[in-house]
C-alpha cells in the first residue's frame, strides 16, 4: 500500500471529522459519521494483512486524539478497538466481494461493532477500580453504547458515498490489483 496516500486520506478524514462534525451531526445528538472507521474498513478489505493491522492502529490513534470520555486524549482505547476491528475484517473479507461499495457499507458496520465494543470495554476498565487509572466522572457504558450504535449506523450509511470516492482512488493507494495470496499476519 502507498503509505503516503493513506496518510493524506487519514489526515483528511481527521480534519473533516473534527471540523465538519457539527455540519453532519444529526440534530443536536452529536451523532456524526466516523470517516476514519470507513477508511480503516476500506484498507481492511483491500490491503495485505500486516498493512491492515498497522493502518487500523493509525486510524484508531487519530480517533483517540479527537478526545473521548476523559478531559484530555488518551491513546489506546480506539487504537486497540480499531485493531480488533481490522482483525475482524481480515477474517471476514474472504467471504465477501471486496471491491463493492455495498460490501464496504456492511463491513463498516460489522467492523464498527467490534471497535466500539472494545472501546467501551477499555474505557469501562479504565473507569473501574481494578486499573490504576482514575475513575471517569459520569461514565455510563449504556449511554456510550447507545450513542455509538447510532454513530455506527450513520457511518455505515456514509460508507456508500465515501466508499465510491475511495474505490476511485484505489490505484493511488496501491491496492487496486492486490491479490490476497497470503493473509499471514507477520
Amino acid at each position, binding site marked *: 500500500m502507498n503509505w503516503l496516500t493513506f496518510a493524506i486520506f487519514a489526515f483528511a478524514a481527521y480534519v473533516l471529522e473534527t471540523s*465538519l462534525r457539527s*455540519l453532519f451531526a444529526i440534530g443536536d445528538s452529536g451523532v456524526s459519521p466516523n470517516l476514519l472507521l470507513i477508511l480503516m474498513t476500506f484498507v481492511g478489505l483491500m490491503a495485505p494483512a500486516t498493512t491492515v493491522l498497522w493502518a487500523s492502529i493509525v486510524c484508531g490513534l487519530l480517533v483517540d486524539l479527537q478526545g473521548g470520555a*476523559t478531559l484530555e486524549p488518551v*491513546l*489506546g482505547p480506539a487504537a486497540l478497538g480499531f485493531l480488533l476491528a481490522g482483525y475482524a475484517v481480515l477474517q471476514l473479507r474472504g467471504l465477501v466481494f471486496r471491491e463493492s461499495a455495498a460490501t464496504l457499507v456492511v463491513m463498516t458496520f460489522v467492523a464498527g461493532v467490534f471497535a466500539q465494543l472494545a472501546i467501551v470495554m*477499555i474505557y469501562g476498565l479504565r473507569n473501574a477500580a481494578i486499573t490504576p487509572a482514575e475513575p471517569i466522572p459520569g461514565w455510563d457504558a449504556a*449511554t456510550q453504547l447507545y450513542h455509538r450504535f447510532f454513530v455506527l449506523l450513520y457511518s455505515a450509511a456514509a460508507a456508500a458515498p465515501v466508499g465510491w470516492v475511495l474505490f476511485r482512488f484505489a490505484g493511488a493507494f496501491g491496492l487496486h490489483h492486490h491479490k490476497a495470496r497470503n493473509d499471514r499476519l507477520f
Partner: protein
Amino acid sequence: MTAFLTQRRAFALVVAVLLISSIARNSVSFAIASVPAALVQGLAAPFAWPLGAIATALRGDGERGVDSGVEASVAGQRLAEAAVYITQLEQRLYAAEQQLAQLMQTQQVSSGARYVVARVSGSSGDPTQPTITIDKGASRGIGLDSTVVSGVSLVGRVIDASPASARVSLISAKDTRLFVWIKPPDVLGGPREVLEQVTRSTAGAMFEARIEQGKTVRIGDIAYLADELWPPEAQGFIVGRVTRVEPAPDNPLQFQRVLIDPIPELSQLRRATVLVPVE
C-alpha cells in the same frame, strides 16, 4: 544477522504501549498523548479552522450550546473531572497557605528579636541536664531565658549569662516538656496538624508524644514549638522530626507513640544563635 526490531516485535511493542496508556493513571496517559495530540492538532488547525467556519455558516447555528442528552453527559463528565482537579489544587493551595502562615509567624515573631550568633565553646556532657556554653553573654544583651536556636531548630534556653559567655540548657534535658504542632514537612502531606505535648523519651529517641489513634501523624512530619511557657520569639521553631510512629505499648488500640528526634545533633553544635528580644 536478523534485526532486533522486527515488524512483529515493533507491533507487539506498540500494542503494549497502547495497553499501558489505556489503563494508566491520567497523568501518564495524558503525558503519552500530549506530544502526538499537539502535533496532529497543530497540523490540522490551518485546515480545520476554515472548514469549521464553513460548517457553522452553513448550519446557521450561533454559539452551539450543549442541549442534547449525550453531549450534556460528555460535557458533564469533563466538568466533573475538572472539578475534581480543581479541588485537589485547592487542597494543595490550602496546605501551602498553612505552611506560609507558619513561616510568616516564625519570621514575624523573630523580627521582634535581635539575632546574636555565638560559637559553642563547651558542653557539660551531663545526660540529665545537658548544657552548652557559648562565647557571647550579657554584654551583647543576652539574658536569662533567652531562646537559643540553630538555624530553624530549637536548641534551648539561656540559664546563666555572664558578660562574655552564657550557659544554655538544651531541650534534651531529662524533664523537658514541650507543646508542639506536628505538621507535614511539605504541601504534599495535606492540610493536617496535631497539637501535642512531647516529653523526653526512653525509647531510643529524644522526645515522644502520646497521641490518640484517630489523629494522623506520619514519619517525616515536623514538630514546631507551640508552648506558651517559651518566649514569643521562640514559637514556631522546629523541635524535631518524627522518626517513628507505633502503637502505644500500654494501650495500642487507643493511642500511638510518636518518637521525635531533633534535626541537628545538639551535642555536636559548633554555632548557635541567641534571640534577644528587642525592647
